[in-house]
């Protein structure tokens, strides 16, 4: 079973990330049983039919805006944000916006070109699930990669994981 990092631990995960065409009707979607992530466009086209389905997630590409999910967030259990390339940093802002402006409390999952050297930044921006591509890391390597979540123990700025900046958290001597 594929693995992912959830809340700082490696777990098994069965969710499928579906690449679908929104023009297909919901009946034609033929969604597999169990947890799935459907593309934003499919969600938007078939909200009514998909709403409330157990294990339903929506995934967004880096060019897609989380603002388009405003109003839907209560019906979506998990959101995956795709990194088409790990150097495309838009999903960091998307995750931060979901957690802060939209107060989203469901899972936010990093998918796509997800590498351990960015885990720390992802976690800080509100990703609680991190899913490197299948085969990118062996199980042992993924366990080892957990260390990257702890690259820095006391960051300066406020972010999602630490909503106060260092200058408010700590008494720093002049």
């Amino acid at each position, binding site marked *: 079973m594929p693995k992912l990092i959830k809340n700082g631990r490696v777990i098994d995960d069965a969710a499928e990330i579906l690449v679908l065409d929104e023009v297909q009707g919901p009946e034609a979607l033929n969604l597999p049983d169990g947890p799935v992530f459907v593309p934003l466009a499919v969600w938007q086209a078939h909200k009514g039919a998909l709403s409330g389905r157990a294990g339903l997630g929506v995934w967004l590409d880096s060019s897609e805006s989380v603002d388009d999910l405003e109003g839907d967030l209560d019906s979506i259990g998990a959101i995956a944000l795709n990194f088409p390339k790990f150097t495309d940093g838009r999903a*960091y*802002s998307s995750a931060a916006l979901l957690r802060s402006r939209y107060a989203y409390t469901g899972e936010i999952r990093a998918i796509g070109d997800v590498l351990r050297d960015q885990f720390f930044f992802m976690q800080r921006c509100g990703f609680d699930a991190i899913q490197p591509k299948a085969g990118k890391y062996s199980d042992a390597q993924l366990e080892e990669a957990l260390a990257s979540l702890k690259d820095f123990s006391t960051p300066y700025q406020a972010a999602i994981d630490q909503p106060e900046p260092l200058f408010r958290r700590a008494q720093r001597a002049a």
Partner: protein
Amino acid sequence: MYRYDPYDQKIVDERVAQFRDQTRRYLAGELTDDEFRPLRLQNGLYIQRHAPMLRVAVPYGLLSSTQVRKLAHIARTHDKGYAHITTRQNVQFNWPELKVVPEILAELAQVQMHAIQTSGACIRNITSDPFAGVAGDEYIDPRPWCEVLRQWSTFHPEFAFLPRKFKIAVNGADQDRAVIQCHDIGLELKRNAAGEIGFRVLVGGGMGRTPIIGEEINDFVPWQHIITYNEAILRVYNRYGRRDNLYKARIKILVKALGVAEFKRQVEEEWAFGKDGANTLTEAEVARVAAHFTTPAYEALPGEDAGYASQRAANTAFAAWTRRNVLAHKVPGYAIVVLSLKNPATAPGDITAEQLDLVAEWADAYSFGEVRATHEQNLVLADVKQADLFALWEKARATGLATPTFGLLTDIICCPGGDFCALANAKSIPIANAIQARFDDLDYLYDIGDIELNISGCMNSCGHHHVGHIGILGVDKNGEEWYQVSLGGAQGNHTSIGKVIGRSFAAAEMPDVISKIIDVYRAQRQDGERFIDTVRRTGLDPFKLGVYGEAAIIERKQHA
């Protein structure tokens, strides 16, 4: 200057450990070249023509003598005995081996230094006025604000993978000495009518392929909000800046595409959410940081030291040096000294390990143990007693650091160019040295007066050629190195982008071309006006005529 507390030190130490592990995984084949590239770049490590090049951060140009000694040690131990001062006030080493870079970073961390975010598509080293705290025209010291922003921008998790690099500069004086109009964000410290401190905010300036002068999007952001305001700008840029084309990915392209009014609207809409949030600065934090930039223990001295006056009268070489390289200080009896790195025998901005050690010694003896690096690639001792100037000059002269040409034609800003840089289209150092060799007569240089000649080896404009009064750009024509000349660029309060005068030149022609340009200026100048004023008054035509000759101009017009 700012000294690390245990929090700052821990972050830098953890960075060393992180990069050590990343380098180990790269060398073990666990990280691909593509995966390692941004990681090493965000540590200032380029793969260059000869070896990796390591760019060490010098936050807003400030160095302690201890740090300078460490740089000397690194130059001696891990490099070929010299270092290079960059146009972002940083220090570069051209010859370190990849596998020893973690060791170099560990050594730097011992003296509160690092290479964090000196390259890559992230917020770069924040630059500022090299005369901060000592210039007479300063109204607000920019250094504490630079440090506050440095900490905020260090490993900012949301902005580590921006569309492109992002540069911020801060100035707090009458004269802009930080090129704030040519930065992604330019900040000008000011006071409002009530006397409160805030920032005028410019965005979308930059050099590079498409030089653009920044535009104001807010005339006064109160100091408490400067972090949240910057975050709003960065978030709009991170979300909407172009990522499909490297050449159109800087924030200036986004600002131009949206128009500054729409860009401002988006920023302020975003800011409404972050404003007054946790990142709002506190008086306690600003006071804590500002306490590191206290006034040194100046002595009460007469405004004019009698010995200094007689030394100048007795020694013309000393007098010449003081005329150019010694600047007025806000405290009576003190002076700002520019240690020139423009000795014609060396590459502009280069300094040897031995010289670095000596500079550290002079800093301790004469300038409260501090040194500054300038974006014009010189070093500054900012707090020297007039009574010490002669002794300092003798020592500097003995080691080639007293070239008396600050602000003159041969005080050239020059990138490392094709001799070192893998990005360059053409070499730049030999052009600089050839021009310096042509103009080796000091009296003639003094007659030409204030002028800025900047050379970049490629469109990336590290040598700031767009804002040189004379700008030289290395271009590639069918695999050959050619040089394009522009005139009329300027930095400072009246920033302007130079205009290309015509067809480009071979390297060997360049000293003649500069001679012809200077001849035109000397023939055209009125009432002692500076070179840039003449260019602005006459336009380019007389210069084109002087450089290309009448026949060439006529031919060009016929073909137009």
